[in-house]
Every structure is written in C-alpha cells, then in structure tokens.
C-alpha cells in the first residue's frame, strides 16, 4: 500500500502553518523540514530530550510524536519561545548567567523542558525540577548548572520579579 502525502495545519511559534507530510513523519521531522533547526535531533527514540517542544503547553518529545496527530494543535520551540515569551527569554539568559551551556546540543531541549516546568509547576524545588527534566540528557555540564538556572528563574517568579 503506498501511503499518500497529507497536509497538517498547526500553529508553530504563534504562526499558522500547513506542512505537507508523510503519514509516518514525526513532529521532529516535520519541524526540521520546515527550517526549525533549533529543534535538535538526537537519539530519535524518546531517550535524550534534545527534540523537546511544547505541545499545547506541555513538554513533549517531538521524535516520538506523530506529525499528523498535531492537526489543530499548538507547538512552541526554543527559538520561538525566546523571541515571544518573557519567561522563556529570561530562562535563556539565566542559562548564560549560570554557565549552564557547554557544547550546547542539549540546550534547546532543556530550555523548553524548563519553560514547561516553570509554567506548569514553577516551585523553586530542585528535586521537582530534576524530576521534570529527567527526560533530558546532557553529556557535558553535569546538570548542576542547568538546575541552578531553572531554580534561579523559579525563585524570581516566587519573589514576583517576573
């Protein structure tokens, strides 16, 4: 059986888009095929988290999300968040201030997961932060400084500074 191409309408980084995809394409593939190169491709089987995006506000792994199933849904990536969302932009800065970035490959995924945490939970609780980002792997930093950055912004939120 030869599968037909299909069109999927979704909102990516605030913009309505229509992607032409194969039924077997993942959201990761569809995003990168449409120039969203800030969404990185690592393990491709849901383990590493570098492909993390927000789907309707929840952090998900775009490599194990079917593009076709995103019809009518809203997707935000690291870049789009940084350009449009104050909290996300603040978290990106905090990563720099805390020295959370080395090679950088895992960072877009960590920023998105961190934004997911701050928006959905938000407590400045290191254990909860760790649990929330446990689906993201980093081979360089040793994680501490990444947790520091998310905690820093959570503390700012608690103090009402952001």
């Amino acid at each position, binding site marked *: *059986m*030869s*599968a*037909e191409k*299909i069109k999927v309408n979704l909102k990516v980084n605030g913009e309505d888009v229509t992607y032409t995809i*194969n*039924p*077997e*394409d*993942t959201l990761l593939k569809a995003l990168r095929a449409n120039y969203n190169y800030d969404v990185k*491709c690592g*393990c*491709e*089987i*849901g383990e590493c*988290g570098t492909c*993390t995006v927000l*789907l309707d506000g*929840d*952090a*998900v*792994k775009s*490599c*194990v*999300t*079917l593009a*076709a*199933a995103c*019809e009518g849904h809203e997707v935000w990536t690291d870049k789009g968040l940084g350009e449009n969302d104050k909290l996300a932009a603040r978290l990106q800065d905090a990563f720099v201030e805390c020295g959370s970035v080395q090679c950088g490959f895992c960072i877009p995924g960590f920023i998105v*997961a961190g934004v*997911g945490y701050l928006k959905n939970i938000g407590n400045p609780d290191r254990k909860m932060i760790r*649990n*929330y*980002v*446990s*689906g*993201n792997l980093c081979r360089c930093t040793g994680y501490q400084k990444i947790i520091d950055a998310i905690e820093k912004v959570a503390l700012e939120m608690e103090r009402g500074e952001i």
Partner: protein
Amino acid sequence: MGAMNTKVIEAEYDYVKPASLDEALDILAEKENVKIYAGGTDLLVKLKMGADLGMDIMMDINGIEDLYGVDKTADGGLRIGAAEKIWNLETNADVIAMYPILSEAMHLMASVSVRNMATIGGNFCNASPVADTVGPCMCYGACVELKSKKGVRTVDATEFFLKPGVTVMEADEILTAIILPAPEENTGAAFTKMARVRPDIAKVSISCVIKRDGDAIKDCRMAMGSVAPKPLFLGDISAELAGKKMSAALIEETAQKVHDFVKPIGDHGTTAEYRKEMAHLIAKEILEKAWENSGGELA
C-alpha cells in the same frame, strides 16, 4: 546490539483519525491491519527500530471523547478512560487518594515529557512485561473494558496478558477503560522498582496491596514486572496469605517463595540472577511496607 535505530520509519501506511468511538469501531471491523496510535511512545519507537507490525492503517484515537475521563463508579471505584495521559493520572486527586501506588508507579515511569504523551491504555496494550501501571492495577483488582462492534466485555487485568506484546484483545477491539473497584478500609499498598536511575525501564518491579483484619491478613495481592514474559500476577503465593497472622517469619517465607517461583531471563537490562535475588529482597520490603501502610504492626 539487536535492532538498529534507523531514525526513519520504513513502514508505509495510511493515517486515519476517527471523530468518534463508533467510527473507530467501524474502521476496526471493516479494515484489516489497523494499528491504534494513542501516545505513540511505544509504537513510534518500535517503528523506528524497524519492527514489522504488519500495519496498513494507523488509527489515531486521540480526541475521541469516550476514551477520556476519570470518573467515580456506582460502587465507589474509579473508571479511567484508556486515552488519559499518564501525567494527568498521576496528578489526579482521586487516583492519588484511592490508589496511591498507581500514582507512584506512574511518577517513576519514563520522564515528564514522555508521560505528557503516554496513555494508560497504551501501557496495557503494548503488553510489555515491564509495563509499570499494570502491577498496581492488578493488585487493586482492576478490570479492563474492551469494546467492538459486537459489544463490550470486561476482562480481569490478571487475565489480560498472554505473552510479550500479546493480549486477549481481538483485532476489532479497543481498550476503552480501566475500571478499579472501591478501595477498602485498613488497606495498605507498596510499590518498588529497581532501575539504573529511577525513571528508567524497570530491571524488576513489584506491587502489593494488603487488606488487614486486626493482626491477620484478610487478603493480599502481589504482582511483578520484568520477571516473566508478561506482567506476572503472583495469585497463588498471595492467596496463601489470606487469613494468616502477619509476622516477620511469614514475610521471609513468602519472599523465599517469590524468589523460588519467578523464572526471569537475562537481557540488556540485567542478568537473570540479579532479577531473582532482587525478587526476594523487594518482596520482603513491599510486604513490610504494605502491612505498615495498612496500619498493621510487625511483632
């Protein structure tokens, strides 16, 4: 290494998204080689690893209203829609209050970004021996509800699984809900999972629910993950405990029985020997903990 991650899904298939349960059941009745897509966290990984699932049509069940909801049943239990996401369930106040180890097991599954997609129905239907939601459900006495054009039937969770990836479900059926009976007084539960790091796939896991009657066991149910070709309900060993007075000696004796009974295999996760030793250790641990949680004291 076994299967290679090709990163490209080799299989070609059509994608359909029915708007209602009736429409989904029609598709299953009329078409061949239909596979259900729920969260996709097992299905897409399998496809990327090159598994031949014999799928011509992928049917997306997301958004079908009848498959959602966490509702109290007439007898005081809970009916959980099959397409409910793990994250929504582990944070659901009723699930936490009524079935604490189900929530706990979910909390230890994968990572939040997987649990935001993964469904409880998918965890059951994928029928892996490691499936973390299954043991707690078996111990709480859950049933699964299966629907097709022909009607609806319920199957005890302990009888749902046949072998890896295979259940009693027919090709034209959908798992629509997990139904849990009302929790009873003086009940204690415990869950433990041994993994490299906590959110990993279990090397071995165990669940236990004990109903207490004074210093005796009224009823006990234990289940294990990753020690058999399917999620393993320890029906006979658990049943032998009914009516007995709880003691450290009884716990030790039971843990030894669990150890002797299980026949795990070795794989990339760990060795058979490790699984067998751990079975003894964690059986002891959860019996003690479940008893304590039921309000019982150990002499």
